[in-house]
């Protein structure tokens, strides 16, 4: 068996790669489902129904996709510049902390100002959190995977301290949670029924904006050039270090927006279970989208559907919800393989 590079990679083949990957992942998970003694088609049918089978299900799936779009964009932008930001989770909580600090009565503005204000503050907080790792990286070549990953735990512990201590809501009946976001800062729901809120429209708009930035702007050009070939970028006059820092600020800001959107949109207040690992799942979203900002939207909705659908499936038949994590993990691995196969071909002889 030998592996050879393909002469050219057609756009169709590249675009279909994630679809094949998802099918392959479903095949792998089918083995596990059979193991539990459930009919595979029934299980996947329930999963599909749980994710898209009713207005309520679709509403839930889209709601759950909002933080994933933000954290997916955060990873997609950073990875484009080969800056491996694994700290989306921490930056998400940094954004949530900013929303809580400014949005629980410190400042009161009319709603059309309050929401953008909280968003901006959350983005700044997420970006600032990433400032230390990125400067360590560009100045002292400290590996950002380690620093961003470890900062997640620092931030989580800080959140735990604040909501158990100084920021604890006296009205919470002893639950560890911060005070609620004031009404002016809450993201309104979009439909009469369901939890889908304004954050979805903001997330989609920002995805389009990021896509346009990467494709049409000088900054996007410089980010891509630095990621593909830092040596050539430097030679042509791009300030590589500065570009990486700017990229990191954008990436951290996007993850921070996820925190604002979850705090001010979905929950209304900050708790320690605000995010079940949206920061990490965002990396999977970005990989599935092959770092394309527009593709982040369907990728986030797909992963959200897997999680929401798996919840419904596990309630109906006796399959643990962990199957969702396996399915997501297998999808990402399969995408990485399928990208390889779209560029190389295997020949047997």
């Amino acid at each position, binding site marked *: 068996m030998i592996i*050879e*590079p*393909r*002469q*050219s990679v057609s756009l169709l083949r590249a675009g279909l790669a994630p679809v094949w990957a998802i099918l392959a992942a479903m095949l792998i998970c089918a083995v596990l489902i059979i193991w539990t003694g459930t009919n595979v088609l029934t299980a996947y049918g329930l999963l599909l129904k749980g994710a898209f089978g009713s207005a309520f299900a679709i509403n839930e799936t889209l709601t759950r996709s909002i933080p994933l779009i933000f954290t997916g964009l955060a990873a997609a932008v950073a990875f484009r510049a080969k800056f491996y930001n694994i700290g989306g989770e921490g930056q998400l909580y940094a954004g949530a902390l900013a929303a809580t600090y400014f949005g629980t009565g410190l400042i009161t503005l009319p709603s059309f100002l309050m929401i953008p204000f909280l968003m901006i503050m959350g983005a700044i907080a997420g970006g600032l959190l990433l400032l230390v790792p990125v400067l360590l990286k560009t100045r002292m070549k400290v590996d950002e995977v380690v620093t961003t990953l470890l900062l997640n735990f620092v931030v989580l512990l800080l959140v735990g301290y604040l909501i158990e201590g100084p920021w604890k809501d006296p009205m919470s009946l002893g639950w560890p949670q911060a005070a609620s976001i004031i009404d002016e800062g809450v993201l309104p729901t979009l439909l009469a029924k369901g939890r889908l809120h304004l954050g979805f429209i903001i997330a989609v708009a920002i995805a389009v904006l990021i896509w346009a930035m990467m494709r*049409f*702007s*000088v*900054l996007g*050009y*410089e980010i*891509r*050039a630095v990621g*593909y*070939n830092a*040596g*050539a*970028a*430097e*030679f*042509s*006059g*791009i300030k590589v270090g500065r570009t990486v820092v700017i990229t990191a600020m954008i990436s951290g800001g996007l993850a921070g927006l996820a925190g604002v959107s979850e705090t001010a949109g979905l929950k209304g207040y900050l708790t320690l279970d605000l995010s079940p690992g949206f920061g990490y799942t965002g990396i999977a979203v970005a990989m599935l989208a092959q770092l394309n900002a527009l593709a982040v939207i369907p990728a986030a909705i797909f992963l959200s559907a897997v999680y929401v659908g798996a919840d419904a499936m596990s309630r109906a038949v006796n399959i643990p919800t962990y199957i969702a994590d396996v399915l997501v993990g297998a999808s990402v691995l399969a995408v990485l393989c399928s990208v390889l196969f779209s560029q190389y071909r295997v020949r047997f002889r």
Partner: protein
Amino acid sequence: MTSTVLEFRGVTKRFGTLVANNSISLSLAEGEVLALLGENGAGKTTLMNILFGHYQADEGEILVGGNRLPPGSTQAALDAGIGMVHQHFTLAGNLSVLENILLGTESLFSIRQQTGAARKKLARLAEDYGLAVDTDALVGSLSVGERQRVEILKALYRDVRILILDEPTAVLTPQEADNLFATLKSMTRQGLSVIFISHKLHEILAVSDRVAVLRRGEIAGEIETAKADRHKLAEMMVGRTVTRPKLTAMEPGDAVLEIKDLSAGKTGAEGLKKVNLTIHAHEIVGIAGVAGNGQRTLADVLSGLQGSFSGSVALNGGALPAGDPRAIVASGVGRIPEDRHARGVVGEMQLWENLIAEDIRSQDVSRGGLIIDRGRATDRANRQIEAFDVRCEGPDAETKLLSGGNMQKLILARALSREPSFILANQPVRGLDEGAIAYVQEQLLEARKRGAAILLISEDLDELMALSDRIAVISHGRLSEALPTSARTTAEIGLMMAGQPVAGEAA
């Protein structure tokens, strides 16, 4: 008639649709130096990789001493007495010469090195082949020429009967190359056989008994060296007659680039020490030197990658905007980097994107330095691609799909379209085929005619002698005075490259 020690029979190797080796049949006689000549991509390396078992041939077989060599086995090739000295040496700098040579030949379980017999054997080999090296010296402290001798000794110590040398002179001064040739002669007298891979015609004529020319994966011809000359070999290699452009005398104009007391970089051989150089309009100044003697630092300062230095660099009377590549380009410098792939282009980006890399924030191709003006960028790319004859599918093609020659034309298009007053050409023809070399050199001469001042850094002395009005030699970061090319001989330059002062030269 001497006996055949190595024979390739109909060796074919395909990579997808590309036929890297097409039915190659070739034999090597005992005591013979066979030169393997061919352009980059002609299939020389693939053939050697098949011999060493790194690749398996799709068809054909290889015989060593009449026995079939098992395909795909490096160990089999080594056991059959085949040794190779690679272009990039495979020595550990922190071990002594002796340790490097013994490495891999000893049992892992022996407690103490038994060096007595090894020393005796090495002393005999060194004597027999004129390969004097201090066996206790650290390899890291040796010159490049000495390291190559260690590589050859390493192969001889393992009793090779067939030695393959891949572009062995690329890192040597002319004198070191002559020593190598003498060694090869003495090796063949002792019955060893040598395959000498090169694309330098004069070396092949000097050292080989027979030449096999590879072209596009096929044997384009075999010829006794005694019956060959440069033109004949060049024609066989390229498939047509190619004449490289020649310099015509021109009166130099005003000083364009003035470097005074420039010191920069580390304190080792790569750092510059008080370099002085002036280049005038209508003038090409060549810099000769063995790689790693400060050429890179000089190029980095002039192209804006290195902003910290002492001394001064003036361009057209004003200070060069040091450390800022875009400002340097805007002030009239055209830059051809040493390494196309690592510095020149972003392979994953499209042609038009690479063409705007140096001035992306200018009004020409962007709106306010923020948004790329795709229409104007594409228009300009189309004009440049046409003017510099870049063979491609269009400005939207992916840059990494270009051949080496076309990629270099793309870089020329970017650097020369704005008619720079000073051109830094760092190894502009490295790795190109004859046709592309002629094109690049013509473009440089065209720019000189127009009035550009050109600094040509090259490791190819023939190229420097043919294209330079004046030549300076760089060694250990010190640059000699640039004298008219006619006032220098290759031998003199070779001595200076090795760091020896030449009579009449200021130290």
